[in-house]
């Protein structure tokens, strides 16, 4: 919690501290194929939150004893650069980063057809370049793009967003200030084509009715993010087509 006075987070016109309406996403930007060495890569921005992801694999596992005979293992690392936060963060992994690495891995593992690649590993490396709320969900969105960019078969893309409750109002895609004063933080990730939830955490208190309302709000955001993901993946191919086919 921040010391000092809590700012007014919803104004008299119902607008949020950055001018958005409660159900509005921040500007979303995405790019795929941004790194040369990686098998798949992506860069995602949710407003001022900036995340880059590399995927390597399926590839041979070192050390060998981690191998599974019937499917690929997923290794996932969520990490924040030391300059991504207001106060410098030590580069060594924190307990928070270790937990988030696990929930993100589990949010993606059920989506990937790991049984196609027994005895291999698919490695997902998430680096938060600038943190302004929603880094784990932006990380998942970027990771699923990077997996698709690597050509790894999966059931669907995964898109994520966090819903919060500020000044008693449910708001979509909370930024850092809202997160700090939020009564609730509810990050959600889904396979949008199937409406199946792959990540769900909650920090705070909601009535059941409010929970369902919050989930609906998250879904609304996720469907929009999914559209941008699909466009981003296809645009570079359709661009080449347009260039050469006339």
């Amino acid at each position, binding site marked *: 919690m921040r010391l000092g006075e809590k700012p007014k987070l919803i104004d008299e016109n119902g607008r949020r501290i950055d001018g958005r309406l409660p159900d509005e996403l921040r500007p979303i*930007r995405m*790019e*795929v*194929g*941004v*790194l*040369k*060495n*990686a098998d798949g*890569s992506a*860069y995602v*921005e949710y407003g*001022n939150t*900036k995340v*880059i*992801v*590399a995927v*390597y694999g399926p*590839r041979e596992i070192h050390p060998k004893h981690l191998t599974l005979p019937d499917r690929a293992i997923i290794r996932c*690392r969520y*990490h924040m*650069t*030391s*300059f*991504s*936060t*207001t*106060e*410098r963060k030590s*580069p*060594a992994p924190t307990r928070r980063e270790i937990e988030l690495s696990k929930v993100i891995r589990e949010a993606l593992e059920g989506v990937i057809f790991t049984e196609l690649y027994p005895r291999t590993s698919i*490695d997902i*490396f998430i*680096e938060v*370049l*600038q*943190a*302004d709320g929603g880094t784990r969900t932006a990380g998942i969105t970027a990771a699923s793009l990077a997996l698709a960019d690597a050509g790894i078969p999966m059931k669907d893309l995964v898109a994520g967003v966090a819903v919060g409750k500020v000044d008693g109002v449910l708001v979509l895609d909370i930024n850092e200030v809202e997160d700090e004063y939020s009564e609730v933080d509810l990050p959600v990730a889904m396979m949008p084509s199937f409406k199946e939830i792959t990540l769900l955490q909650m920090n705070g208190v909601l009535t059941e009715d409010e929970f369902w309302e919050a989930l609906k709000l998250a879904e609304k955001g996720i469907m929009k993010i999914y559209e941008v993901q699909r466009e981003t993946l296809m645009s*570079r191919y359709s661009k080449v087509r347009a260039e050469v086919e006339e």
Partner: protein
Amino acid sequence: MSITPTSGRIIPRLRRDTILSLLEKDTRLDGRKLNEYREIVVAPGVIPKSEGSALARIGSTTAIAGVKIGVGTPFPDTPNEGVLTVNVEFVPLASPTLEPGPPDENAIEIARVIDRCLREIRAIDLSKLVIIPGEKVYIIWLDIYILDHDGNVLDASMLAGMAALLDTRVPKVEIDEKKNVRIIRDETTPLPINHKVVTVSIAKIGNKLIVDPNLDEDDIVDAKITIGISDDGRIVGLQKAGPGVFTYDDLRLAIKYAKENSVKLLRALEEKKGTKISLNSVLKSYVEEKILKHQII
């Protein structure tokens, strides 16, 4: 303990032979001349939340640097100076051969070379970063991450680091009667810089010297020398690496190459200085390059 490295990458003999036979004709696999640097991109201000930042690309080698500023106690031997801490991280995004973990000897060596190049010439005026002499000073954290490793990560790290320092704004502080210091991040002044510094790395393969080795060349070099050059043309740091040796003639040529190329690197630092570049714009549309300019052989 430092152990002879066993590279995870196998260089095909056909490619190695081609590199060597091209070097005999004073040319390189990617068409460069021996003393020719790859294309340089410097994008400052990519992380607005940090006190200073920059992304640098040399060919496809990519490094991102960010500066965070805090308040702490000075070192006992320099009570009237701020503190500069340089840290380099090889994150596993950058290459299939990298694993997560604390900085290894390569990352630590790079961080220390950069630190020395900045410190000895007093590139940053640390004496202006004192809040209460002997008690409270500014701590400048320069953190550099390698995002894509295509050879010569040292020069890319130095370039990103220097560009980030040039982009850095120092927040004001308030001191109360109990000498408590509060940082006011909204009010800033530029980081006091005395000199700009760049490094130029030169590799020796057989009896040939090449500037700015790419990854294929990096993997077969006998020895490397990194030369720090300041904006007034002085040598501000040296680091020899690898098991091979340099003759006096080699060093003369290496210094000549370093001075020539430092001009290009220093110019790249100036080009976009003072502007804020969006990461989106420097990271995009890499795919075409990846396929069409793909390493041949």
